[in-house]
């Protein structure tokens, strides 16, 4: 190449430096100074920032709301993983293995909620759960289960479980496609061999399909866990705002409340550090847990 070293480095700098400066200012700096803020008590105005050492962390461990928010987050993680994986697996197998004519239609429809705004999803489901007008309660009345009707999002016991269904509703499509991609890559000869050995469809699913799409299953579970821990607070904020009586607060929505409505920015940052640490630990543990030899036939 006819290019001097200097020219090469100049071009390299042109490509990398502006982007990296922006990335440092708007992503790296905020993350690190978030860690730093967690050692201060700060209501937002610059002259009242006070170094308090680990006081915020002590407060964190003594805050009664915190264990509840952690539990709520992991409740959502667990129910979403189970719900989404079972449904997405079922749909993916049905659409790929059973030669259904209208399969493309289902694929297009089931994916669509994945690209809807959380605001739209949240508001739609608030109506579905509406105690007087909502589909859920009128449906229950229609099949004669009046005693099961309740103000779903207004009840301390039922509000959190009620958030699971919209999350599953909105999440299935992506994982259905991921799993379908895995299944369609499995060579037909495995199924033929299994048939010759006398395996029925159910056994084929357990012995052939499932082990061979394990990588996709693993990725899906990790992805659901990460996106839930990093983003469950959005649907919470839209649908319940953490209420009633903190019964649906997750870590992120509690951070928002502490920092941006009560102006405890230092304490908010401490909650942020907790979210970061917990989600990193969870991802590492999960990766160890899900490690399973790749199957080769």
């Amino acid at each position, binding site marked *: *190449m*006819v*290019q001097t070293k200097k020219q090469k480095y100049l*071009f*390299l700098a*042109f*490509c*990398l430096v*502006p*982007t*990296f400066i*922006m*990335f440092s200012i*708007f*992503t790296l700096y*905020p*993350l690190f100074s*978030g860690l730093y803020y967690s050692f201060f008590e700060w209501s*937002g105005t610059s002259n009242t920032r006070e170094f308090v050492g680990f006081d915020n962390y002590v407060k964190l461990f003594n805050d009664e709301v915190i264990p509840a928010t952690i539990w709520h987050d992991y409740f959502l993680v667990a129910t979403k993983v189970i719900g989404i994986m079972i449904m997405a697996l*079922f*749909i993916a197998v*049905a659409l790929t293995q*059973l030669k*259904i004519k209208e399969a493309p*239609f289902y694929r297009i*429809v*089931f994916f*669509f*909620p994945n*690209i*809807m*705004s*959380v*605001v*739209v999803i949240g*508001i*739609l489901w608030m*109506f579905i759960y509406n105690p007087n007008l*909502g*589909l859920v309660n009128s449906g229950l009345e229609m099949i004669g289960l009046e005693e099961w009707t309740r103000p779903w999002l207004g009840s301390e016991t039922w509000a959190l479980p009620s958030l699971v269904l919209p999350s599953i509703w909105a999440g299935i499509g*992506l994982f259905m*496609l*991921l799993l379908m*991609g895995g299944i369609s890559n499995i060579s037909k000869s495995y199924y033929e061999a299994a048939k010759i050995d006398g395996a029925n469809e159910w056994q084929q699913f357990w012995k052939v399909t499932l082990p061979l799409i394990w990588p*996709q299953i693993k*990725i*899906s579970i990790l*992805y659901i866990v*990460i996106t839930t*821990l990093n983003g469950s607070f*959005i649907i919470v*904020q*839209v649908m319940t705002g953490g209420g009633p009586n903190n019964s649906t607060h997750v870590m992120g929505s509690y951070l928002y409340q502490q*920092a*941006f409505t009560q102006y405890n920015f230092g304490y*908010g940052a401490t909650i*942020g550090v907790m*979210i970061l640490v917990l*989600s990193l630990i969870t*991802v590492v543990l999960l990766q160890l847990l899900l490690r399973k030899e790749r199957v080769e036939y």
Partner: protein
Amino acid sequence: MKRTVGERLVRSGIRLPLILWSLAVLYPIFWMFLGAFKSNAEIYANPWGFPEQFNFSNFVTAWTEYNIDTSIFNSFLVTGLGAALCLVLAVPTAYALERIRFKGSQMLFTLYISAMMIPMVLGWIPLFFLLAQFNMLDSIIGLSVVYAMSQLPFTIFVLTSFMGTIPKSLEESASIDGMSPYGILWKIVTPLTMSGIITVTIMNAIQFWNEYFMALIFLQSSENYTLALAIDFISNEAQYTNAWGVLFASLVFAILPVIILYSIFQRRITKGMTEGAIKG
């Protein structure tokens, strides 16, 4: 092969949940459209049925009295600016990371990629004060920058994998013909990566159009509200004003561009999202 009665039964038994789930997905969306054409009295009397006559007054009210027009404009602006800025920053970096050998290239790539997994919630508090210092708090420009940066790692990631599929020979022959590396990037690589650029831009645009939480934190005055914030505001207010029809009308405004994009670029969007998830 002939199917037994039992197999047929299993097959229709499997269809039933598929049909039910499509209803569960489509009906609420369909119903939202219907609600936008109903009067308040109709919404109460017959919440889940058809309107007696379709009237557009909810749309007009949303547009004129609830400033939905400004919010739609703001949403388009933030989406366009954010997507454009993200591309401008991502394309050169993706090219350098994919094609130029230099020390630390792998490390830089890993740094960008790991930023996709980090919960940004922690960063939002300092970012709030940073934007205030730059006079970019409560501004569409500021929010566009934040949006662009939030999707930057993902965009770099998608573009590098697209650029990896371009044969190197084209760049080499252009270089022998005396084209500068800037020319190669602009005139050879960018057009050849266009498919990837379009895919990732559509996905970013949908993301920005739908985004709610960062807008909630970084915007304050109602004339700067994006559509998501305006809808959230109408929704919270509707408990007192009972403006349900207006709420549905604004939901329709919010979802229509997404439906249009999805119907045109369905394959690109689904492919882009699944590949992003697999490799990410």
